[in-house]
């Protein structure tokens, strides 16, 4: 009995401390080092922040370069698929264009009306847009995020909204000198205050880790209010981080607590980062 216990201890000690010929450090040393890194990376000391930014900068750039062949193959694959569907797409787009032309007229009128109303309450919303390229969009099953090629040198800040054309895709959660990380709306940790139109109800859109999101914190009568209407979620602007009125997605007809995002997060190539300044002139 004692012998088997001794064997276990010897084998265990050897696993931790013994170095093979070509290993420079023992596993125990490296294990302690990794624990130290985990602890230190949570402190916001300037030196640690600088090292962290340095590691991020190098890794993102290297990953972008190494992923180039894979990205090219994926791009060619999607181009071939697009070519095969070109006629059907053309017909659909023609129909969609007609509808959009009609909507544009109404939209212009509403825009002017909105500006007039904002003038009446002496409030102006100024926003600046920065165009950024997606460097890395590796889809991890656990965390949904993308890396952009703009950072503090382009005056990016944590919390800024990121849009694909006009549709909200996420917010900036980490900023380095030349790049930044965006948490996508589909991530489990993403929570965005929205307003559901036309019913005018406030809610929160949360990520699920999948392709769609879920609607939370609605009023009890939410399901009755929907009444087979097409419900669109726009950013409410509550919290002052996002510009109000950015389209997020539409409520699924099948499940009223599910939201289908307007943007396809797997196809992002260029996005716009929006900085918001709300001036209350009262």
């Amino acid at each position, binding site marked *: 009995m004692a012998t088997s216990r001794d064997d276990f201890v010897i084998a265990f000690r050897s696993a931790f401390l013994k170095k093979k010929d070509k290993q420079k450090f*023992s*596993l125990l040393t490296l294990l302690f080092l990794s624990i130290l890194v985990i602890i230190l*990376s949570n402190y916001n000391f300037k030196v640690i922040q600088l090292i962290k930014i340095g590691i*991020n900068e190098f890794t993102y750039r290297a990953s972008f370069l190494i*992923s180039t062949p894979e990205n090219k193959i994926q791009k060619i694959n999607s181009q071939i698929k697009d070519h095969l569907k070109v006629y059907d797409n053309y017909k659909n787009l023609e129909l969609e264009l007609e509808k959009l032309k009609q909507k544009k007229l109404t939209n212009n009128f509403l825009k002017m009306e909105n500006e007039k109303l904002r003038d009446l309450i002496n409030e102006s919303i100024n926003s600046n847009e920065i165009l950024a390229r997606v460097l*890395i969009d590796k*889809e*991890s099953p656990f965390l949904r995020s993308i890396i952009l090629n703009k950072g503090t040198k382009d005056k990016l800040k944590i919390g800024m909204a990121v849009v694909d054309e006009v549709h909200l895709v996420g917010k900036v959660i980490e900023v380095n000198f030349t790049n930044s990380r965006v948490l996508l709306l589909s991530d489990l940790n993403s929570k965005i205050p929205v307003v559901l139109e036309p019913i005018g109800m406030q809610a929160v859109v949360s990520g699920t880790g999948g392709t769609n999101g879920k609607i939370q914190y609605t009023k009890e009568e939410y399901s009755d209010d929907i009444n087979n209407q097409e419900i669109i979620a726009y950013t409410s602007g509550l919290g002052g981080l996002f510009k109000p009125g950015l389209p997020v997605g539409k409520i699924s007809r099948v499940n009223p607590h599910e939201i289908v995002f307007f943007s396809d997060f797997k196809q992002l190539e260029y996005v716009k980062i929006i900085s918001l300044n709300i001036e209350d002139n009262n």
Partner: protein
Amino acid sequence: MSSLNKNSLSNIIFSYFPIGMLFLSVFNDFDFNYLKIEYFSFNFAHILIFFWTLKNPDHLGYVSIFLAGIINDVIIGMPIGISSFCYLLICIATAYIRNITLSPNFINDWLSFLFIILLINSILVSILDLIFLIEIDYLKYLINTGFTFLLYPIFFFFFNFINQKISFRLND
């Protein structure tokens, strides 16, 4: 002379294969996610580290594994150091298995692999959820563990083939 050069080049390629694949997989986040199969994902790095540190640790240094973990955390967006910690736990387990095993057996290795990945994923999930308060999908981790376990035999035969090539060339 040219055949000698060719031989030494292929020797280098084969001997750096594990490290090359490890770094390629963490930089590229290689897990066939682009197949877009619902819920399908597996951890290639876990399979690679388990196999090579168990069968031929001379070709996959612990420092490289530590650095690969750091890179993986940066790419995925997890707190830095967690993946390194988990990868090194695999190394400890494989070093222990190597020490206590007299005659290696595929089934034993495979079952040990299941136990180890369940253990390290539990540690990982606990750290992320309880310490860093990052919301995570437990089911996805479980499915990922399942697929990693199921795909181990395929990679085992492939890596075993490479390992035999390396051993053969070094002894040649």
